[in-house]
């Protein structure tokens, strides 16, 4: 028997009232695969991610994780939101924010400190454990959210435009950190972005959504070597070719 896909969407559609947002979505993500989803604003990327997370049931069709229908959220799946400022607990220090998933999963209190410090160190926040989220920069807050999501030891990571609000430098640094962190644990990643270059740089595959209603317009493999590198990957002839192709496709979709 073939191995079950990490994420599988079978003829999924979603409507809010009479408003059809997504229609006929068929998609499958292999374990360990890094899939990027791009699409215009309002094409339903976030909605799709929320369905996979179990926060929103599909109107028709089925969402499966490792072959099992999703009914409600599970701690095997972690979500990183774009609006880190709202997703963190403002009254908890960085340390205690990372502690939250460990508490939820029932890790004994005496095992938590070492794990929390290890995670904070992984995202470069070792010296900021006593700061409240409000005292951290945007990039640091997003690092904190990433550390919190990793505390769940998820086998699937759903990221919704996680770097959309960050400056270009911070963005590149965090892209590489995420690549490194998910490669360590062979995590499956479903990564939503607006940015074609970001999608190509990170993904094994890029899925483009068409709007009104949202549906899969294009699903393309990215055969670029790993580990990726901000300079050589972005100058790779295949990267440039794919980038051109994607731009043309996106222009056609939005024409």
């Amino acid at each position, binding site marked *: 028997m073939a191995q079950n896909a990490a994420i599988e969407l079978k003829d999924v559609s979603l409507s809010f009232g009479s408003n059809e947002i997504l229609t006929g979505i068929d998609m499958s993500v292999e374990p360990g695969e890094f899939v990027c989803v791009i699409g215009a604003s309002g094409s339903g990327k976030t909605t799709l991610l929320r369905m996979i997370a179990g926060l929103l049931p599909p109107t028709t069709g089925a969402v499966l994780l490792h072959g099992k229908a999703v009914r409600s959220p599970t701690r095997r799946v972690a979500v990183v939101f774009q*609006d880190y400022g*709202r*997703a963190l607990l403002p009254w908890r220090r960085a340390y205690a924010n990372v502690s*939250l998933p460990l*508490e939820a999963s029932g890790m004994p209190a005496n095992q938590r400190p070492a794990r929390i410090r290890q995670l904070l160190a992984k995202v470069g926040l070792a010296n900021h454990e006593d700061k409240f989220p409000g005292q951290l920069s945007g990039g640091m807050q997003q690092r904190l959210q990433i550390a919190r999501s990793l505390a769940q030891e998820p086998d699937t990571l759903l990221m919704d435009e996680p770097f959309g609000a960050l400056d270009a430098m911070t963005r590149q640094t965090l892209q590489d950190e995420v690549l490194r962190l998910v490669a360590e644990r062979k995590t499956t990643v479903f990564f939503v972005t607006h940015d074609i270059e970001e999608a190509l740089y990170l993904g094994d595959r890029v899925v483009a959504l068409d709007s009104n209603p949202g549906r899969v317009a294009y699903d393309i493999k990215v055969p670029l070597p790993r580990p990726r590198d901000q300079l050589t990957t972005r100058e790779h002839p295949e990267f440039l070719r794919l980038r051109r192709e994607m731009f043309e496709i996106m222009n056609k979709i939005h024409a």
Partner: protein
Amino acid sequence: MKRFRVLDIVLGILGLLTLLWIWHLVTMLELIPRVFLPSPAATIAALEWGLVNGDLLPQTLATINRMIQGWLLASLVAIAVGSLIGVSAIARAYIQPTLEFLRPLPASAIIPVAISIFGLNSSMVLGVVVFGAVWPTLLGTIHGFAHVEPRLVEVSRLLQMSRWEFIYKIGLPNAVPDILAGMRLSLTVALILAVVGELLTAQEGLGTAVLHAARSYRAADLYAGILLLGLIGLVSNYGLAIADKRILAWKN
């Protein structure tokens, strides 16, 4: 942060001194007969005598005790009940209009009810203080729960947190600013009702002391009592403001 700058404190003290000075002038020029308004010096002398030789100290403590007891009990009830109501949108919709009906009732209006239930004793006073002081904190708690950031509700669902975990890790901390604001309001209410309660039941306390002083035309003692009541309000409010600032450090 900025509220407690030295300048603010100096200005505040100057304001109080101004009041004292006007009071001094009014009595010096005898704009109001001394029998009705004693001089600040006479009042402070009466205060000193009352605290050292008289019963003013135990009376003050009795009133503070009554106020704090009622306030703490009211706060506990308000936070517990408010959390249970606040955590459920259905419970909020169900009970909110009832609360809005009960809240504006002047606590003095329920005194007759309290007397018929408890009689003229200290339980009645406590009951009235609790009834009056419970609303600001109760409504604050419910408001805090109703306004949890939707993202954080999602985070709690993603982590499969139990309802109880949600209450004490997300709902309550989110409501803390509203709870503290409510508790500050209700402390003032508690002081007023503690005094009214003691007047009605003739129990030992500052309220009763003030009433007796007025009845026997001891103006200086009367104003000494009023001064103490004002001080209790001032000190407790500043104490809570400082506690606020420490507890809400994450907001700055």
